[in-house]
């Protein structure tokens, strides 16, 4: 019996190597295709590492909730959150700070798209009330916790009197990401869906959308969305003034420098700007209204 215990102790002991030198762990909500995210955040990590002189590692996460949990737990130091997940994360993490947003994030939109074949009778519209045409259609959101792929679309749908239970099958689908929503609507698996305007525009530009199969129905009014959120203890861990250096590095990303230009292009932005915290009050109130923030 004792030898068994000794064996166990020997087995378990070497599994806890001393923590390596301080590493800045960055992450992002998985809102697009993983290979794209890997490319983008690999570049971001390299850029930040060069500028700040610390090791930076990209930690991929598989769903939005895990990103929030990881941040709250302190497993992630700097995360590119959506509006809703950012608010959730900051509410759960005392001291967390908002560092920056893209130029497009203060006035962000979602788009509603439809499969041409399936919705022959539907034409693009401009009035929110016409969202009611989507009743009894097969409809897909993105991730459950996506701001532009679920929260705000659901909010606008509710304004037009469409509840989630009004869709065909008694509930909407959750495709998981914006790219998946496009693919599923294009294939006809869902008749309509809602997603992030910026992803839609950039896929259109890249020629990755078959416009003979998918059609844009409606653009939502604007709302604030994505933002970089950092832990409050970075100065303590990486030295005085680290947080502001980090913020500066993000704000100064410029299209004149090849790698930075690539980062900005993958983000679909011209530059990053400071993000006033109070603009997310509207997201928080919608989140509470729809039960995604308690």
């Amino acid at each position: 019996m004792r030898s068994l215990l000794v064996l166990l102790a020997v087995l378990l002991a070497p599994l806890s190597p001393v923590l390596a030198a301080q590493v800045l762990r960055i992450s992002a909500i998985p809102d697009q295709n993983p290979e794209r995210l890997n490319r983008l955040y690999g570049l971001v990590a390299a850029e930040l590492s060069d500028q700040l002189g610390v090791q930076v590692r990209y930690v991929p996460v598989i769903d939005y909730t895990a990103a929030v949990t990881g941040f709250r737990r302190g497993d992630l130091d700097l995360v590119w959150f959506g509006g809703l997940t950012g608010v959730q994360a900051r509410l759960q993490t005392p001291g967390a700070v908002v560092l920056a947003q893209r130029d497009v994030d203060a006035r962000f939109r979602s788009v509603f798209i439809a499969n041409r074949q399936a919705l022959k009778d539907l034409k693009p519209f401009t009035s929110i009330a016409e969202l009611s045409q989507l009743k009894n259609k097969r409809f897909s959101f993105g991730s459950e916790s996506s701001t532009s792929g679920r929260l705000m679309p659901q909010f606008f749908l509710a304004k037009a009197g469409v509840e989630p239970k009004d869709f065909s099958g008694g509930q909407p689908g959750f495709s998981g990401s914006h790219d998946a929503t496009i693919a599923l609507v294009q294939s006809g698996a869902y008749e309509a869906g809602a997603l992030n305007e910026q992803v839609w525009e950039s896929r259109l530009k890249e020629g990755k959308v078959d416009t003979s199969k998918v059609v844009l129905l409606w653009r939502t009014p604007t709302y604030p969305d994505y933002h970089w959120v950092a832990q409050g203890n970075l100065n303590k861990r990486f030295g005085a003034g680290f947080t502001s250096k980090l913020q500066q590095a993000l704000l100064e990303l410029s299209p004149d420098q090849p790698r930075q230009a690539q980062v900005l292009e993958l983000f679909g932005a011209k530059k990053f700007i400071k993000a006033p915290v109070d603009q997310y009050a509207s997201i928080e109130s919608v989140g509470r209204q729809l039960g995604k923030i308690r």
Partner: protein
Amino acid sequence: MTPAGQMLIPALVLLPLLWLLPGAVHGGGLALLLQFWLAALQPSLDPHLLLTALRGIGVTLAIALWSWFLSLLLGFAGGLLSSVAVSQRLWRCTWPALLIRRLLAFPRSLHELLWGLILLQLMGLQTGVAVLAIALPYGALVARVMADQLDALPLQPIEALSTAGAPAWAALFTAFLPPLWPQVLSYGGYRLECALRSATLLGVFGLGGIGADLRLSLQSLQFHEVWTSLWCLAVVMLLLEGTVRWLQRRWHQPLGSVGQRGLELLLLALLLVLLLIPSAQLMELRWQELFSGWHWPASLPLWDGAGWIQPWLPLIGTTLLLTLLSALLALAITPWVLLLLCPWRGCRPLLQLLGLLARLLPPPLTALLLLFVLKPGLLPAVLALGLHNAGILGRLLLEGLDAQDQRASEALRLAGAGPRRSLLVAGFNTVARSYLSFGAYRADVILRESVVVGLVGAGGLGVLLLESLSSFAWIEVVPVLVVYAALTLIGESAADAYRSRLLSGPLPLEGLNQAVRS
């Protein structure tokens, strides 16, 4: 009704399913589904992707191995402590055993995915979470099986030893361990296969390993990449199942020389223990970090009366309906396909291949695929759970049929009976009881598993749970967990009652029998 009849009767479940089908089909993504199956023939062979897949599988295997190892340790300890017979020897009273048995019911009552999601909140994003999430419920399950086995052993040997003056522990080990070995071996092997499936499933929910790759490439419709991971996983699963089966068979028959089995066992145990170290490194398992700094946000209340006000009746009703339909479907598929196709030579290999695929794909991913052609709702969830478990049950049935005495079916065939009749009379009749008994056990597992298809909007407790988790509404999560646990405990005793009625007579079949005793 003849035993074979009882095996075929669950097919009645097809009636309500067929009735649901017309309302549920939309077929919009039929082309996608075809693409998915065609991609099986041309998995992506991109070296980078292959490397990622292999690494993912390595992590999944490492999680499976560690959780299996820990669950056996927990299970042996728990089994000894919760066995009435052992308790009587050691402490001369039974209440400690009964108390521990009650306490162990709780970890068992929650699916490993739920443990994973709860531990994730406590311990953060680490692969160790998946290991513990599987080890806890599995350990409690192994403990129960161990205790049942111990309590079923004859008491004469131990009494003889005690009378002769042997100390309590020594007497226990000498009298109880040797007769337990065969069961422990078959059951242990079966648990390792289960651990591999669970580790894959936990990956789907982001707790490490190949599951994540599977889900992400499926969601972004990169089917060629999906199949790269799937085929790699298939090879690993086949190898594991084959090895386990081979070892079980080898050790069940008397070997050449005395002590050879013991030696081989020792070697295998040593090999597995040695494998634990590299696998811990592969998945970056760090116990110190895992258990340091547990953290519950003060801002998230756990308890509030309002969380308890839920439409429990429809929630529970849907969950039970989902379980019942899936279990019947899982039971019905293999015997019927076998019966209908058995004159055809390719029947067995086809069933084996389909069964492997069904076991391979975690149910939530099957459900996602089904959503290409079905509306969200009960049906895709039933099909996903039913098919996955049919894969597991089917393999046992085929092995059971292979392992039984072939003379009866030979005789029938020589007497002029067709292949169907001989399969029914000689095959099904003998394996029916053990098949149904294992089916009852799987139904119990399906009840726990029903939470994992909450993704596809099957309704029931699973949907509420996943939605509450993504809203961080712990005041809702706690009541659902409590109700779920209560439900699975009731389900467990119902399945037990059915099994003990079914198995009250002597069991005719060796091969299936061993696995079924689990």
